[in-house]
């Protein structure tokens, strides 16, 4: 009967140690807000199941637009595998929009911008961090928040100049020898990215 008593006694200790290693996720705010219309409609139609949560209840609410322009710009810079900058306050960012380089300061007009391959720089005091971003979107909100979403981004000093030159030559050669439209488009993308990289490194 009590043969396993020691094991049973030891169990809670082990599981609490495990709980310490694996903390609860951090992005759940204490107060949960949701779409009340949705929740009411759900409760009316499906009374025996709790309504599912929606993304907004997992998000920190954003502040309203302040009456005076704040001194800093709050930047979120996210990639599929990481959040490079999360709610970081900086002085200025320069983003490579498809219409040209775009400097964003606090109080910038609300904008949605598509990004092209190019250099995004983050200015913070005297420090400048430069990233090469492949593509994505940037949202600049009226409350001096800026969200930059990129598919891929690397700090500029991680890029090898010689490999860029090699890649550029390779894709230029491919572009000239491409026969189908698909091949041509692929080679064109390669050339675009590599020449943007080259320009970023040399310029």
């Amino acid at each position, binding site marked *: 009967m009590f043969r396993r008593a020691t094991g049973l006694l030891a169990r809670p200790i082990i599981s609490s140690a495990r709980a310490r290693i694996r903390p609860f996720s951090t992005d759940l705010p204490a107060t949960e807000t949701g*779409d009340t219309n949705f929740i009411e*409609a759900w409760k009316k139609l499906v009374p025996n199941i709790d309504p599912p*949560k*929606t993304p907004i209840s*997992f998000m920190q609410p954003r502040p309203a637009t302040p009456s005076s322009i704040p001194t800093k710009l709050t930047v979120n810079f996210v990639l599929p595998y990481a*959040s490079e900058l999360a709610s970081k306050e900086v002085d200025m960012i320069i983003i490579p929009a498809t219409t040209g380089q775009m400097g964003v300061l606090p109080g910038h007009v609300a*904008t949605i911008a598509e990004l092209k391959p190019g250099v995004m720089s983050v200015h913070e005091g005297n420090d400048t961090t430069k990233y090469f971003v492949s593509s994505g979107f940037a949202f600049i909100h009226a409350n001096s928040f800026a*969200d930059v979403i990129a598919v891929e981004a690397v700090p500029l000093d991680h890029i090898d100049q010689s490999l860029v030159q090699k890649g550029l030559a390779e894709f230029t050669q491919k572009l000239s020898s491409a026969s189908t439209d698909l091949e041509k488009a692929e080679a064109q993308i390669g050339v675009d990215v590599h020449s943007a990289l080259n320009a970023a490194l040399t310029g």
Partner: protein
Amino acid sequence: MAMAALRREGRRFAPLISPQPITAAVRSSLIQQEQAPLGVRSISTQIIRNRMKSVKNIQKITKAMKMVAASKLRAIQTRAENSRGLWQPFTALLGDTPSVDVKKNVIVTISSDKGLCGGINSTSVKTSKGLFKLTSGPDKETKYVVVGEKAKAQFVRDSKKHIDISITGLQKNPLNYTQVSVLADDILKNVEYDALRIVFNKFRSVISFIPTTATVLSPEIVEREAESGGQLGDLDSYEIEGGETKSEVLQNLTEFQFSCVLFNAVLENACSEQGARMSAMDSSSRNAGEVLDRLTLTYNRTRQASITTELIEIISGASALEG
């Protein structure tokens, strides 16, 4: 010493007394009463021993599965948590519109390919069916896109005609953004939609997950809602840079949004799956342990009983000879 000798004796006598292995008393449910021969003296413990062996093996397997799930969980949890920033800008910009009223709804249900992971798949399915009820109505059309083997099996039972696409084998390779965006592209190309509702289980902790639905609107609906000043009324105040027209940018934007939200959703769901599997396997190996305990007790008691019976036989036989 004496006990051992007696037992040896008993064993020598046993075949004489009962030539066939007899199994009754304890496991009368296993063997019918009529089959047990008359004059049952000793009881075979073979069946209990076999059962104990199989329970022990089951316990080993569930323990191993738990370990595997734990190590997989660790790898996928960091990736899921890192991908959580990805959908937030879209929700900040386009808002969260689960109550939007549109004609063509597509419910994208995310589930796992493998079983033995508790209730996460049936939770997704139930939530999806609830959403289906909510979005269906006259002159409305709701379809399912099913990701994963398990939800597919459950939907085929009663909503087969509503399944538009089913995708399986997503988790054969480690999930990455490229793979998920190809999948998202596939879905977008093959369904007509006004709103996509992605149903998944958001990972909260090893023992709990939250059924969640994220809504992605089609570019036309985004434009309509923005113009009518509904939930997306703020969108009109944004300047749009790049692209030829506003609708072109919006199309790119919503497609990108879908791939990002889907990427996070599959990671969260995979993470919840491993967590649920871990706790399911933990409780089943604990259960196996309890069953094993009970079986050991029965086994020992039966063995003791048969030894006692044999002893009594020998002693009474000896005393009969002496007398």
